[in-house]
């Protein structure tokens, strides 16, 4: 089959002052009909810029300065704005990463999908409504009639992504560009959306350019794959061959970073429990007026767990499963209604605010989002020393201890003077754990600290080895 979309030696120049001169350097890709090409790479590798370049929706100051983008033989770079608009939506359609914000909150789903027909066809309103309902049916949204009238905020993330797909496929475009459509979804919904895209692609024979950073997705959906790094295509080919024996060192490094799903070798655990959680439960009551019409959600229902000394207990669950609420209950950020949290003999749940404050020496928390867990206005060293200062250590001594800890977590001790925004995501995670481990805590609770930025950083985090 002749390729329907060809990128021939395309380069995209960034405005002056960026961290590198070109977002894309001499990129050549080809996409045939009825085929899914995955473009994979870390953030900043230029994969999203490729999508924007094809659609000619580059942000201000960014320009294509070389190469051709052929769609059905026509070079899109040469088209004027009016001609390009005809291609967008009808010829090449696009779906985006954040379903939450990708739809106009003030207009109904049916209205926004219908707009595709208003733009590119002269169907009557009734016909448009029928076609939209059919599309919603096709993407298997529960109760299409209700979804038609609903507003974006009334649908779940998955349903909204389905609506986006329906919108994209409204005019049976030749090419569908999917820019990390499943990254922000939780695992089960992610699988459903991938399956949906796979089925629709087979049935309609659309060519799909799928952009992701997750090799799991590549393995599941891609026919061919192209690996990008710093704006260049380092390797491309059949999925099996690229995953089987990656040629380029960078590809090998990326594949190695995917954590295997098998359990680590069992270690001898001590019998004596450091912490026991018995029948903890927490319910949220929101809204309602004088008890009427309240919405009650049982976030944590009668949870009992035991944590042996020196062991790591992993708690897995989807968002909304109550795992964060349980964590916050343990450090008394939230007060549970019932249940005991016994930490070497003391029931934390019954402590007063003052007593809890001194008990914080024995229990610490590291948070999920490295960007948000450090106060941007406070030097990194101070953030680590804070816990010590609060518990009575003199400031200079605390700062010295902080320098020591920086060395321990593999950071340059002099970095204590720098501000959080000068560190990468991974480094910040180390600072957070250093701050948590500053106090001689016997037990550390670290909630799923797998960061969305890049999978390769995660495996080297020190915390896994020591606690």
């Amino acid at each position, binding site marked *: 089959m002749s390729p329907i979309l060809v990128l021939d030696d395309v380069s995209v120049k960034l405005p002056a002052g960026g961290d590198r001169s070109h977002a894309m350097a001499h990129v050549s890709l080809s996409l045939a009909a009825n085929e899914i090409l995955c473009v994979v790479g870390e953030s900043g590798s230029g994969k999203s810029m490729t999508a924007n370049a094809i*659609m000619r*929706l580059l942000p201000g100051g960014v320009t294509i300065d070389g190469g051709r983008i052929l769609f059905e033989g026509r070079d899109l770079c040469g088209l004027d*704005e009016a001609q390009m*608009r*005809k*291609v*967008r*939506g*009808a010829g090449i*359609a*696009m779906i*985006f990463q*954040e379903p939450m*914000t*990708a*739809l*106009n*909150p*003030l*207009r109904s789903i049916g209205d926004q999908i219908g*707009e*595709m027909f208003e*733009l*590119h066809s002269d169907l009557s309103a009734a016909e448009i409504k029928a076609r939209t309902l059919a599309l919603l049916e096709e993407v298997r949204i529960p109760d299409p009639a209700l979804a038609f009238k609903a*507003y974006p*905020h*009334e649908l779940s993330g998955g349903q909204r992504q389905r609506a*986006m797909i329906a*919108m994209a496929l409204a005019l049976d475009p030749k090419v569908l560009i999917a820019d990390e459509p499943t990254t922000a979804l939780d695992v089960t919904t992610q699988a459903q959306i991938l399956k949906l895209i796979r089925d629709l692609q087979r049935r309609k024979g659309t060519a799909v350019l799928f952009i992701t950073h997750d090799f799991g997705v590549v393995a599941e959906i891609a026919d061919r794959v192209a690996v990008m790094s710093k704006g260049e295509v380092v390797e491309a080919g059949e999925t099996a061959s690229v995953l089987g024996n990656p040629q380029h060192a960078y590809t090998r490094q990326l594949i190695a970073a995917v954590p295997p799903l098998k359990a680590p070798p069992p270690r001898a655990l001590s019998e004596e429990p450091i912490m026991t959680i018995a029948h903890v439960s927490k319910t949220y009551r929101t*809204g309602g007026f004088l008890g009427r019409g309240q919405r009650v959600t049982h976030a944590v229902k009668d949870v009992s767990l035991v944590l042996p000394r020196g062991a790591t207990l992993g708690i897995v669950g989807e968002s909304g499963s109550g795992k964060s609420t349980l964590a916050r209950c343990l450090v008394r950020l939230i007060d549970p209604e019932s249940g005991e949290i016994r930490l070497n003999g003391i029931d934390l749940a019954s402590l007063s605010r003052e007593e809890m404050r001194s008990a914080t020496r024995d229990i610490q928390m590291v948070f999920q989002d490295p960007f948000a867990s450090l106060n941007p206005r406070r030097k990194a060293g101070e953030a680590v020393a804070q816990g010590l200062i609060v518990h009575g250590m003199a400031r200079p001594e605390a700062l010295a201890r902080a320098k020591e800890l920086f060395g321990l977590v593999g950071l340059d001790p002099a970095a204590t003077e720098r501000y959080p925004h000068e560190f990468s995501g991974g480094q910040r995670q180390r600072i957070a754990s250093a701050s948590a481990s500053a106090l001689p805590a016997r037990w550390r609770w670290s909630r799923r600290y797998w960061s969305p930025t890049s999978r390769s950083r995660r495996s080297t985090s020190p915390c896994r080895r020591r606690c």
Partner: protein
Amino acid sequence: MRVLTLAGRRLAASIPTLILILIGVFLLLQLAPGDTVDAMMAQMGGGDAATAKQLREFYGLDLSVWAQLGNYLWRLVRLDLGFSAIYGKPVATVIAERLPATILLMTASLSFAFFFGLILGVVAARGVNKWPDTLISTLGLLFYAMPTFWFGLMAIVVFSIYLQWLPAGGFEDITVSYTGLRRTLDIALHLVLPTLTLGLFYMAIYLRIMRGSMLEVLNLDFVRTARSKGMDETRVVVRHVLRNALLPMVTLIGLQAGTMLGGSVVVESVFSLPGLGRLAYESVIQRDLNTLLGIIFVSALLVITINFIVDLLYARLDPRITTGS
């Protein structure tokens, strides 16, 4: 209708605010030197101690502060705003006489400011950093920085004396009695300059808010989706951006209703308009507590109603409110 309960709850919540204001101002004005009888004698140019004592008893000023406050609140509960010392008439009638001028002035200035603020804001946002943006923004800043009374007086000098296009002041021309349309036209003519004077300051604010809000919305994801659907820029703005950008503008109306009445004190005195603003200023000078509190009560109701309407408008614009996110 969920939005009615929401707006209704807000209305109920504003009752304690209103009581808080009234009691606060009542006690505050007790501390002012001199009372309404002193002010009356100042205006009369004379008066002996005996008449002063008589008048004080008549106006109930000889009671203790708390007794006076108690009387006032007890009457307020029965919606009786009391008696105006300046005009010897019930406060309600005095305010009713002055209300039309103020409402006309405020609605005219508010709609002028909102309408032109919106249009200029959109034009500035579309041509950001190009000459229309800088021109409009600087013009906006100029009107924002200019003291309103100064602009008013200069406008009189230019438009009514030098060019003789517009009347120099007053609410309508009473030397000759018009009726019906002719009278409304005459009043409109009298309100042109005051509306401009009061409106331009607020137009500058709406202009800046609209420009900022447009720029903010243009950066959101769903605008990128809209463009990827093959829409031209105008349709993107009209069908998607404008409605979202209007939300902060609508809330602003609610917030500014109060300050606008404050602004009208100066404008009404420059253009000798018989409005609540000037009446409030006179009642402070004349220490006429009943009238002042009556005006505050009415202007608070005005502001609350405007906020009530703004809530309804906001709910119509943003479905997230009614369906309860």
